[in-house]
C-alpha cells in the first residue's frame, strides 16, 4: 500500500521517488485528515472534471462559467494554448470576451496536428457565430508563432479581425536587462504613441 502510494505521487510533475516518499510519510504520520481530503478531492475531480464543450477548457459543467456568462461579449474570441493561460489573462480583469483552448501547439513532427488542437471546431465557431475579432494569444515561442500563423490563415476566409497579443519588455522592467530577442520583438511590434 505504501509502495503504491509512493508510485502514485510520482505522477505529479517535478516529483521524484524521494519527494514522493516525503509526501507519503507526512500524510500517514502527521496529517491523515489532509490525506483523506486529498483523496476525496482527487477522486471527485478525476471523475467529474471534463472539457467545456464550447471552449475546451477544464470544467465541471458541460459549459464552463466563462462561456455561460452573459455579461461577456461573444464577439471577441481569445485563443490560448492551455487552461492556465485563461487563468493568467483573467487575473488582469481587462478581457471581457470568450476563449478557445488548444491544449497545446501545432507540432506535426510530434504527431500534433490541426485536429488534435480542435481547430476544426474553431473553424466551425468562426463560421456559425458572430465573432468580430479573434485574438491569437499563443506563446511567443516558435511553436506558438507557427500555430498563430496557421490559425490566422484559416480565419482569413471569414470576416473577422485577426490580432496577435503584443510581446515585449516586462512592465517595470529595464531595457538593459531584457534579452536581445525580446528587445528586437518589442521594437518591431512598436506602436504609435498617443499623447
Amino acid at each position, binding site marked *: 500500500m505504501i509502495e503504491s502510494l509512493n508510485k502514485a505521487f510520482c505522477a505529479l*510533475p*517535478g516529483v521524484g521517488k524521494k519527494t514522493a516518499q516525503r509526501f507519503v510519510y507526512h500524510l500517514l504520520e502527521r496529517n491523515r485528515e489532509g490525506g483523506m481530503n486529498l483523496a476525496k478531492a482527487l477522486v471527485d475531480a478525476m471523475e467529474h472534471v471534463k472539457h467545456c464543450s464550447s471552449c475546451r477548457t477544464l470544467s465541471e459543467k458541460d459549459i464552463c462559467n466563462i462561456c455561460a456568462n452573459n455579461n461577456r461579449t461573444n464577439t471577441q474570441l481569445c485563443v490560448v494554448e492551455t487552461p492556465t493561460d485563461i487563468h493568467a489573462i483573467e487575473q488582469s480583469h481587462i478581457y471581457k470576451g470568450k476563449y478557445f483552448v488548444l491544449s497545446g501547439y*501545432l*507540432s*506535426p*513532427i*510530434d504527431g500534433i*496536428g*490541426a485536429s488534435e488542437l480542435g481547430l476544426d471546431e474553431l473553424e466551425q465557431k468562426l463560421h456559425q457565430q458572430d465573432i468580430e475579432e479573434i485574438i491569437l494569444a499563443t506563446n511567443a*515561442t*516558435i511553436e506558438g*508563432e*507557427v500555430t498563430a*500563423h*496557421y*490559425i490566422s*490563415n*484559416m480565419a482569413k*476566409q471569414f470576416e473577422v479581425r485577426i490580432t496577435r497579443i503584443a510581446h515585449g519588455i516586462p512592465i517595470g522592467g529595464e531595457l538593459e536587462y531584457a*534579452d*536581445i*530577442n525580446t*528587445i*528586437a*520583438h518589442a521594437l*518591431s511590434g512598436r506602436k504609435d504613441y498617443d499623447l
Partner: protein
Amino acid sequence: MAKIDLTPAFLIHRRAFKDTSLLLDFFTQEHGKIRLVGRGSRKSKAPIQMFQHIKISFSGKSDLKSLNDVEVDDQPRSLQGEALILGMYANELIARLLQDQDPYFELFEIYKQFINQLPKLGKQASYWALRLFENSLLSELGYGLDFEHDVNGDEIDTRIECKYEYQSQVGFTKRSIGKISGNTIQLMLAEDVLNTPNVEQLKVCRDLNRARLHPLLGNKPLQSRLLFWSKN
C-alpha cells in the same frame, strides 16, 4: 568524444523531456546533426531560439549527450508567417535526411545563408530559396542531378517548347508529353535567388524536388507540409 566546446550550431527541433528538460536536435558545423538533453532547459528565462546562429558545448559518452552551454553568435532573427513555415520545413528535411553525427560542412554554410536571407525575401523568392536549398541538400547526400544533360548525355535543349520527363533518380528524358521544359531545368542551375522563376516554373520545380525527395523520405511524408493551412 567526451567534451566539445563552443561548436557552431543551429537548433532545428525541440520537445519536452521529463519535467524540466528538453530534447534538442541541433545541426552543427563539425558534428552534423546531433540530439542533446538540455537539463532544466524548460525553465530557462532566455530559451534557445531556432533560426539563430549559436555556439554550443556538450559532453557525455552515452547515446544521449548533455548540452552544457550556449552562446548566441547572431543578431536576433524572428521569422514570421510563411518564412517561419519554410524554415520549419527546411529543419524537418535536415532532421529526417541527415545521418546522425556526420559532418556536412558545406550544407551548414548553405543552411546558414538560407536562414539569413529568408526574412528579407518576398513570397516567390523565399520559395525559390527553399528549392535551391533542397538542391544543395540532395547534392550533398549524393543525389545531385545533372541539369545540363539528359540521360543520354545530350545537352538539355533550353528552349521553352522543349519538354522533358524526370525519371526517378536517373535524370531527364526528352519527351513531347513531358511536364518540365528545358528552360525550367536550366533555372535549377542557379546558385542564388537573384532571378526568381515565374509562378508556373516554381510549381514545376516544387513538383520535381518533391519527386526527388520522395524515395528518400519513404512512406512517411514531411509533417511540416501540414503547417500550411489549406481549405479542403
